[in-house]
Structures are given as C-alpha cells and as structure tokens.
C-alpha cells in the first residue's frame, strides 16, 4: 500500500497509508487529518483542499474545470496556491507512493 507524506495544520508531519484505487481524500479523511470531504468527490464543498509539494504537481492528473472552479470559490476564504488541489480528485496508485502534501486551512 502506498504511503503519502502529510504536513498537518499544526506543522507536524506524518506518513499515512493511502489505498490504491481510492481517492487521496479518503485516506486523509479517514486518517483524521482535518480533511472533511463532505461532498464525497462532487467538487461542491472544497473541504479536502491540500497543497501538493511542487515537485509532485506534474505527476498528478491535471485539474478539471470543475475542480478549478471549486478551488477558485474557496479562494474567497482561504489561500489558494498554484499547488492547490482537491484531494478527492487524486486517485491513489503505486506511482504516487511518497507523495508529499500539506493539509489546507479549514474552510
């Protein structure tokens, strides 16, 4: 099972198991990282926002228009960066073992 490297909101860091075939959001939500994933992957709530390590950005599937729109919407209340992603839109696989990310601020 691939592991991802998570920087928590309090600055602490941890390794987290993330099942291949599941969305990264599932692992972060179930790992009590503060990610809520309220809408379940519909891109309508913005509660699974993460900042991905810049070196990893190119290895992820591109943002869809819907994801970009949700990120723009939460941009009114939290900081959105060029490395911002909705973790529900990142399907986990062995290729993403070692992915480094930071949990976004609460919305």
């Amino acid at each position, binding site marked *: 099972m691939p592991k991802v490297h998570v920087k928590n909101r309090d600055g602490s860091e941890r390794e987290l198991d993330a099942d291949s075939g599941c969305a990264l959001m599932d692992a972060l939500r179930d790992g009590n990282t503060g990610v809520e994933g309220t*809408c379940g992957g*519909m*891109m*309508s*709530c*913005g509660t699974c926002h993460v900042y991905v390590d810049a070196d990893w950005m190119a290895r992820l599937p591109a943002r869809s228009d*819907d994801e970009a*729109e*949700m990120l*723009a*919407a*939460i941009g*009114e*209340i939290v900081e959105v960066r060029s490395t911002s992603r909705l973790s529900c839109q990142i399907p986990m696989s062995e290729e993403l073992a070692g992915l480094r990310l930071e949990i976004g601020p609460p*919305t």
Partner: protein
Amino acid sequence: MGTMNLKMLLESKELERCPFPIPVGWFHVDFSDNLKVGEIRNVELFGQEWVLFRTESGKPGISDPYCPHLGAHMGHGGKVCGEHLRCPFHHWEYDTSGWCKSIPYAKVMPPIVKKQAILRTLPMVEKYGMLWAWYHPQCEPPSFELPYIPEIEDATGYAGTRRGSWTANTCIQEIAENGVDTAHLKFLHGAPGIPPVTATYEGPVMQLDIGQGYIVGTAYGPGLNVMRFNQHGITATMISYSVPVTADKTQMNMSFRHVDYAEGTPELHASKKVIDHMIGAAEGEESAGFESVDFVVWNHKKYRPNPLLCDGDGPVLQFRKWFKQFYPGHENSAKI
C-alpha cells in the same frame, strides 16, 4: 388458399393505448386568478408532480418538487420567500428559473450553483388570463411563442363566459387526431356527410379547414387549438387548451367566445346556438353532455401505428408526421 396475413389478425395484442412520451409544448396550468401571491401548491402534470407557486412580486413559478440538496419535497412545508421558493429542510432558496439563490449556512456556494439552474423549473408565461408552462423533456427553452387571440385578449369586442374541463383517459395526440379524421364526424357524431378537410403545416402550427370554411382551426403545438366556427353569418370561437396529466390521461379545457353582440339581437342568439352545438349540451350541463361519443372511443381505443386506412379517410398520416416533432428523441420509434 393463400397465406393468411397473421400480423393483421394478431397485432392488436401487442398494441398500446398510449405509446407516446409527453409532448413538447406550451400547456395550460391554471387560470391566473387561481394562484395568489405567496401561494404554493402541488399539481400533477406531464407525468409527475410539480410545485406551483407565485412570488411576492407576482411572478409564477413551477418546479420539480425535490430539492437538489437532500431531496425534500418542497411542496410539503416549503414557502415563498420574496422572489424565491424556500425548501423546508435546510432553507435553500431557488428563483423561478431554478437558480439557487441562497444556502444560509454555506461559506462557499458549490460552483455549479453559479453556473446553471440546479432545480428543474418550467418556463412560464401569463397570457389569456391563464398560467402557461413550457414542457420539454430535455429542458430546452421555448421554440415558439403563444399567439395573439383577439377573442380572449382584447379588452372589448368579445364576450362569453362559458368554459369547460373534461378528463379523457388517453393522450393528447389521440384526441387531436380527431381533427383530421373527418369520416368519424359523419359516423360517430352523425353529421350529414363527410366534410372535406384541408390541413397545412408550418413548424409547430397546423391549420385545418373543415367543410370549406365551416370550421377553421389553428393548433399551436399540442397544447393550444383555436377553432372558429362560421355559421349563420356569425363566427364563434372555441379555444381549446388540453394538458397531459400523465402519458395516458389528458385534461381537456375549453373556453367559448363570440362577438359582443347586443342583447336580443339575432347575431347573439346565433352565436350562443353555435356554441351550444360545439359542446352538444344544454347550458349548465357541459361536463355531462360534451361529445360523449368521442370519449367512448378515446377511453378504450388502442393506437395503431400502422392503421388500415381507406379512400375517404382524412389526412391522418400527415397529421401524425407533423405531431412527431413534439417527441424529440422518439422520431424513429416504430410504436408511434
């Protein structure tokens, strides 16, 4: 002995009474007077339930009952709030076009809310003192407008308060087909002969001339038909506005109007007589008497997509070809 055409003998077992989807068009929902400001109620039309309401500024709306959020039925406990319909469950609010205008507790509106209507509503207009809704199965906007009808729109010049409403246990196409089926006028209705008919078709409009000007009718899609009866030197008008309740049940509504002749004139007498004859019943007994001969057939017949027509029948197939435009996506169905 030749081979028997068994299909001819056995096909009726496979036939359906009403194999049609709900057609596209403008349809009568109610009379304007029957929907007050702030009112909200449930109506059954087009094969489902809808929430009919009128906003504080007087704008009518008709929406799918089920809130796009968590599915509450907004016609049970929902409210009109200003210009919006408010769901009772979490107070999400929608305008008459189905756009979500308020989610009282969300810090961020879901992006789709800003991009499109998320609640299905039907375009509505108020015309002829009535509420009209545009039904399209794929939610496309109106492709034609309701016409000007002087008999019910002009402030003066016309009179007549007679109206009627009848339920037919069949679909709107089967009812409308009688307009071109002129042979039935003689044999079912007992007319003295089979009148000649000419039908012309242009887009959603069909014009019928039955009996060389005796009845001149114009249909504007499936939901509105204006028929002018020219007899005894006067013209009397039947405005017919049927609405599909379900795929096999139709509410037939009609208003009858004539020129506002002075009391006691032969023209007024003739106008009322022609209207009596349209309905086929005495004043005050419209529901019981109106064309009972047609209902007997409508309520029990099956639709034959491949009818056995003979010379002397009316232009039934041309009518059906015209009507197919109101079933988008079903143009090639063998059942219709």
